[in-house]
């Protein structure tokens, strides 16, 4: 089992509903966020192109954050989901430094917090909050090892990229382009 997410940059309208859904679902403190939307504009008018990316923790296969954690608080759960155990985290900040995606932050309570792929929902067979609220249905969440899952099909038929693959992290969020 290997959970992953594919996000269609051509369908995304940048409404930030995924961000609000995450903040609500996971009780993210005000001023913080586990996911965010980036708008990249290339070119000069009238020849401009735009890319909208809803970004979050990439739940990497080769996670620098899990590797550098001195206490084992950052760890892999079933399906490769990277989760922080708050009772083990000492708040040293090493994982925040190690993440090329700046997906982690220091929670006001001291521990380090980040996207969990809404593991509490996934365990019940539900989609993560961001995926379930997306009004354009531009996000696909599923098991990469299941040949019939929606994400495997969409990645089979579309071109996609991941962020900073040269970092060697083997990120598991794929952007359809």
């Amino acid at each position, binding site marked *: 089992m290997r959970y992953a997410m594919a996000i269609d940059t051509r369908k995304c309208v940048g409404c930030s509903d995924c961000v609000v859904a995450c903040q609500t679902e996971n009780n993210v403190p005000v001023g913080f966020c586990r996911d965010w939307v980036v708008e990249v504009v290339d070119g000069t008018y009238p020849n401009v192109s735009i890319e909208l990316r809803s970004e979050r923790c990439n739940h990497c296969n080769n996670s620098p954050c899990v590797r550098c954690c001195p206490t084992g608080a950052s760890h892999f759960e079933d399906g490769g989901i990277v989760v922080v155990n708050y009772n083990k985290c000492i708040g040293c900040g090493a994982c925040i430094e190690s993440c090329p995606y700046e997906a982690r932050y220091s929670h006001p309570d001291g*521990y380090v917090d980040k996207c969990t792929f809404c593991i509490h929902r996934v365990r019940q067979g539900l989609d993560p909050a961001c995926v379930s609220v997306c009004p354009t249905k531009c996000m696909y969440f599923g098991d990469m090892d299941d040949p019939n899952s929606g994400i495997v099909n969409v990645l089979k038929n579309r071109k996609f990229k991941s962020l900073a693959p*040269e970092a060697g992290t083997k990120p598991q969020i794929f952007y359809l382009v």
Partner: protein
Amino acid sequence: MREELFVSGRNIPNIDPYLNIWHWQIPSYLFLGGLAAGILFFAGVFTIMGKENKMKTTVKVAPMLVPFALILGLFLLFLDLKHKLYFWQLYTTIRLESPMGWGAWVLMIMTPISIIWSASYIKELFPAWDWKFGFLNTYETWVIKNRILIAWPMTIYAVILGIYTGILLSAFNSRPLWNTSILGPLFLVSGMSTGAAVIILLSKDHKERKIMGRIDILLILIELFFITHLFMGFMAGSEAQINAANLFLGGSFTAPFFAFVVILGLIFPAVLEILELRGYKIPKIFPAVLILIGGLIFRFLIVEAGQITRYLY
């Protein structure tokens, strides 16, 4: 032209717009760790060479400072933690993959060794000292007899501790400025140089100062070579690395780096030490203090600048 912005809004404290999660505590600790490693390395080496009495400050006096430096360093690391009450979790796990994890263990070994070492010399330096408990005297006699046995692991661990202060940073592949294998040796050499500076500062023996001065000049030359090497490597690297190097070669860190680290912290004290060896009278405090300040600023700049550098996507 390319423009990027957060349309959902994102301004997380200490992360946006630039990562700044490690503040003054980490570079200060790296400085103290390197300094302690330098002093213990020289103390160990000269003991193994059988020169305890010729190099009195190196072997006996300067190591007295090390337990204080290490404990203060550990305290600074503790201050840096944001989930402080859980700090003991560090010592419930052994994670060799995590530089911070094995660094914590190296410190756990190094601090007691340094305490035992300096305690074994305390009676020699303060003849009126009394251990109060009989068993401590028994231990002391054993340690004094077997100093060589302690000197070996102490020297080796000193090198590990010194290199570790660099590897702690170089293991982060997400920070292009840090992610270079030269950083470990560079921090080790710089730490040894600051250790030598402390010894020169404390030593009252002209001959000992001369020996440490010579060693220090060599260390500074190696350090300058490593720094050149560091930037050569970056300039031949990827764009992320070129951007990292440019922070120091024209960017916002250029002036403090070249003024306080390269010139005032390395070249100028080296010239002063060479002049001193040539027979000119130069107060020992000048080169030593400049090296110490340079070493401290060097670590502040590398930690601060490294957090700004990142992958481009």
